[in-house]
């Protein structure tokens, strides 16, 4: 009897959970429909200037057309490639710099003021210089995507290295471990959660770097389409590009979240 009523309570609890989930989903969906609907109506009745703000139906039309003739695919590929590479290089570079800083106290003391300046510097302001130095192409854009996250990653990871409980190192040193062995056995594994948490931030940053890079280089990619649409007054194109960016940025964020969960599970 007792067992049974326990089970009933659990079932009721689960039912309540799934009900709440449904309500939330319904709200989320309604907001989306309402927003799109209002936008469409406002545009049709000229409450807003359809030339400037376009309308959902026009954006969808344009997207379908550009997707079927394939002309937008290359731009999407271009931007995705740059963002992923920028993210990887920025994150890996940050971890490597943090390791170098950790490996020599003197090096980290020497670098300290430079890191502070480079961190405070708005990285996108370096865009023109990067383009002059590396040429107006892929390399510059990827550099933009990477440089925007590399310094902050190295600072965050370096401080995480320093926060590892010194007693783990003590244990290793009592076995006569070298500094490198201490790093490999204690410092790095203890810091993995902190490193993983920089991933999500860096994905967002890489998008910023890449889109600004494409604004400046103006050859290809979704950032280029935005600038181009703006210049020829085709705001449906601008909006369509924004929609694509939103979709792919969200997908990438989710993927990184999945990778993060997997890494946390397999590193502990």
């Amino acid at each position, binding site marked *: 009897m007792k067992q049974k009523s326990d089970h009933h309570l659990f079932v009721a609890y689960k039912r309540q959970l799934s009900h709440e989930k449904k309500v939330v989903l319904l709200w989320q969906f309604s907001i989306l429909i309402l927003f799109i609907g209002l936008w469409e109506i406002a545009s049709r009745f000229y409450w807003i200037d359809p030339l400037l703000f376009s309308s959902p139906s026009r954006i969808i039309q344009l997207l379908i057309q550009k997707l079927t003739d394939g002309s937008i695919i290359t731009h999407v590929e271009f931007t995705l490639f740059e963002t992923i590479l920028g993210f990887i290089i920025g994150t890996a570079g940050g971890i490597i710099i943090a390791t170098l800083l950790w490996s020599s106290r003197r090096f980290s003391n020497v670098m300290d003021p430079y890191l502070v300046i480079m961190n405070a510097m708005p990285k996108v302001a370096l865009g023109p210089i990067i383009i002059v130095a590396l040429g107006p192409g892929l390399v510059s854009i990827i550099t933009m995507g990477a440089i925007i996250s590399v310094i902050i990653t190295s600072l965050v990871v370096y401080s995480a290295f320093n926060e590892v409980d010194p007693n783990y190192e003590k244990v*290793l040193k009592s076995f006569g471990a070298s500094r490198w062995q201490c790093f490999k*056995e204690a410092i790095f594994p203890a810091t993995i959660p902190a490193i993983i948490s920089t991933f999500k931030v860096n994905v967002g940053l890489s998008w910023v770097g890449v889109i600004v890079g494409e604004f400046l280089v103006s050859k290809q990619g979704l950032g280029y389409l935005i600038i181009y649409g703006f210049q020829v007054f085709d705001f449906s194109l601008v909006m369509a590009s924004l929609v694509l960016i939103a979709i792919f940025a969200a997908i990438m964020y989710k993927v990184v979240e999945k990778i993060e969960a997997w890494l946390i599970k397999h590193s*502990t």
Partner: protein
Amino acid sequence: MSFLTLDHVSHHYFSKDSYTKAIDDISLSIEEGEFVSLLGPSGCGKSTILSIIAGIMKQTAGKVLLQDQLITDSKIPIGYMLQQDYLFPWKTILNNVLLGPKIYDTNSEETKTRALELLDEVGLHDVANQHPGALSGGMRQRAALVRTLINDPKIMLLDEPFSALDYQTKLRLEDLVSLQIKTYHKTTILVTHDIGEAIAMSDRIFIMHANPGSIDKVFEVPIELRNETPFLVRRHPKYQIIFDKVWDVLSKKETDSKVVPPTS
């Protein structure tokens, strides 16, 4: 010459705008197979002494000799057990135990078998493949004991290894550690706040005082007590007598240091 000798050892901790003399001119010698305790108030430099013997820190003055060799030159394995177990949470118990062999580069099938044997001796065979998070405090401290024993250290340094445990677990672990140390004939230095623990486990007790840390008095534990297990020592008629003597020395020191405020 003794097994381990500290010859006029001092240590200072330096910081940007001050320094602390943690221990001052400590000389002591310990024979092979002996079990000694360092007993004294917080901050009297007990952990500092152990860290120096373990070779984790270098003293600022004096010499430490292990088997007539400077400790910094010798490659003799030392077993250092800390107040908390400091098992690495991302490694399994077995891999934690095999950490020393990995660093010494003596990892082999044999060491693995030996590790499992030792884990079995302390009743941890079944959890060898679990992570430390899944174990109780007492089990973790036993795993930490095995982690030091596997390297066959010439000398064991125990820095309050039982202080984070509940009383019953502590008593049980005292017996276990004492048994293991006797079985493998280890020379041992135990740091503790607990007078009873010092009497129950050791052959000699060094009583220290702080500011700066130095040795006050050395107690010999009577031979009858040495051969008993720690648990039985606590019930021995002579135990209370020794306890009172040690207590007197310690409390006298405390009132002394109140009269003469420490200068640093």
